[in-house]
Structures are given as C-alpha cells and as structure tokens.
C-alpha cells in the first residue's frame, strides 16, 4: 500500500466536515454564554483543558475497545463482560482523579489571578461536569465501537474523531449548565 494524496483527501474530508458541523454548534453554545464567560473568567481558563480531558479519556477507551474487538477479547455483541466493565471502571477512576486535580489546579490558578471564587464549589462543579461528560462519552464509545465493528468499519478510523467532537459539545453544554448552578 502506497500513499496516494487523492485517497487521503477523499477519506478524511467527510469525517472532517461532520466534525466541523458539530463543533460549530458547540461554538454557538459557547458564544451564547458570553456573559457568563465575562463574569466568571475562570470558565474560559478551564475550557481547553476540560474539553481535552474528556476527548483524551474517551479516545483511550475507544482505542482499547477497538483493540479488544480486533484481538477477539470481546465478542462483537454488546454483552456485560468482565473486560468491558473493567475498562469502563478504569475510565471512571481516571476521570475522577484527573477532573479533581484539574478543578483544584484551575481553582487555585483563578485565585492566584485575583478572581474571587469558592475553590470547593468550583472544584465540585468541574468534577461533576467532568464525570457526567466521561460517563456519557463512555456509553457512546461502547455503542459506536460495537456498531462500526458490526458494519465492518474499523472503529479506529471513525470512533475517535466522532467522540472528540460530540464530547466537545456535551462538555461545553454540561460545563456551563453545572457551573451556573454551583457558582
């Protein structure tokens, strides 16, 4: 197999267009919350990190699931197996630790920059929003992985771009919704 420019462009374009369309919607949600962004500067500080964490975690989970499918560790029908539940547990533990640390770091950074926020409520909000995002993404990751596998599409090719983009949308939405409740 040699690389051909036409093939690369043809295969990448559809998925990139879909991701741009979904992320423009996320952009609108973000833009619609301008007032909150200006009132609570901590929100924009945490945004790239928050979204990246959700994306990375679902990316790691989907990679493991698709390797599991490729290697035959998991049967191609969704069933509650030890492999699946342990993988999900690993994602939730990672999510809990990372979002807790992220919330504390971002809260401390905000205080250092002279913002008056309640560190505990801020961290609590980030942790809840983060865990909810990871939870929803992990379910989607399982569904997309099995579905694409059953359709004969390599999950490695499509699940990660789709999940990171959907994750941005869910993440932005939950972050603003939950932070507006706790702060």
């Amino acid at each position, binding site marked *: 197999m040699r690389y051909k420019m036409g093939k690369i462009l043809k295969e990448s374009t559809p998925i990139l267009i879909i991701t741009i369309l979904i992320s423009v919607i996320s952009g609108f949600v973000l833009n619609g919350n*301008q007032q909150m962004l200006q009132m609570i500067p901590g929100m924009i500080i945490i945004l790239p990190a928050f979204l990246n964490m959700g994306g990375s975690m679902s990316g790691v989970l989907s990679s493991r699931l698709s390797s599991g499918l490729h290697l035959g560790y998991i049967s191609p029908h969704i069933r509650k197996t030890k492999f699946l539940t342990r993988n999900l547990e*690993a994602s939730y533990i990672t999510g809990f630790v990372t979002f807790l640390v992220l919330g504390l770091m971002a809260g401390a950074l905000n205080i250092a920059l002279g913002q008056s926020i309640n560190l505990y409520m801020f961290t609590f909000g980030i942790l809840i929003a983060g865990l909810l995002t990871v939870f929803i993404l992990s379910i989607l990751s399982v569904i997309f992985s099995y579905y694409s596998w059953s359709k004969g599409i390599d999950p490695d090719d499509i699940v990660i771009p789709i999940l990171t983009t959907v994750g941005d949308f869910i993440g932005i939405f939950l972050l603003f919704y939950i932070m507006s409740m706790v702060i």
Partner: protein
Amino acid sequence: MVSKLIRSTVKQTTPLLILFAFIQLTAGTMLGDIVNNMSYFPGILILLPPLLAMRGNIGSSLGARLSSALHLGYVRPNKITNSLKINIYSGLILSFIMSALLAVFTFISCGLTQSICLGFVSLAMISISVGFISGFIMVFLAVVITEFSYKRGLDPDNVTSPTISTAGDVITIMVFILIIRLFLMLGLV
C-alpha cells in the same frame, strides 16, 4: 489480568493527563485575551471549538499515518521520501479547505439563527489565516514528534496522538490570539 489492566491503564493515563491539563490551563489563561476583546468581534467564539477540533483531527490522523508509514518503512527518519511529501501536502491542503469551509458554515448558521456575527470576509480571513498558519506549524510538528519518538524507540502510536492534540490546542489558541491582535492593530474590524 483484568485488575492489572485497570491498574496499568489508570497509572499510565493519569500522569500524562494531569501534565496536559496543566499545559492546557496555560492556554486557557491566554484565551482570556479573546474574551476581553469580544465586543469588537461578535461571534468570534463560535470559531474556537471547530478550529481546535480540526487541528487535533488533521494533526492526529497525520501522526497516525506517519507512524504506520514508519513501521512499514515507507517513511524513514530524516529522509524526505515521496510518501512523506504526500502526507505533508495532504495535511496542508486539508487545513486550507477545512478552514475555508468553516467560515462558510459559520456564516450560514449565523444567518439561520439570526445571531450577530462578523461579516463573511472577516470571518473567512480570520478562520483561514488561523487555520492555515496553525495547520502549517502542526504538520511539521507532527512529522518531528513522530520521527523523534520513533528514533527514541517509542511506539509513535502511543505518543503522537495525545501530544499532537495538546500541542495543537496550544498553538491554535496562540495563533488565534495573534491574528486577532493583528486585526485590531490594523483596524480591520
């Protein structure tokens, strides 16, 4: 074996994620600059998630292709082979096309939702200049990171994707801010 899997995954992922969270927080702090100038650029924040997503996706898939090519011997470290050139050109072309499409989509959806947004020309100029400049940097960074990790004996598949997406976010945000500063300085908006 299974409980080992849990432990090793958590152990391998968490430190990397925490390090990246720290880098990302720095990038987020810079974003405050855009929020402060938002009144000059109505709707500018709509571009942020797509620009970040695009950069990550184009960069990571380029990194993934390059690492497969290194494994297969189509690309060799420090050599400019035909496969390498094709991969670089594809990344650059995709960056350009997608940034232009982004401006079109944003403009149309601004009209559909009747939001107050920048005009099409400004949107296109910002989107294409940010998309293409950061795309240009990202393509070369992807090559360097992939070849470096390969030479170090690391499997590029494990290293490139998270590194490239984090670097992509930071670079995109920096270029975004620079372009907006430039627009303000030149009085283009």
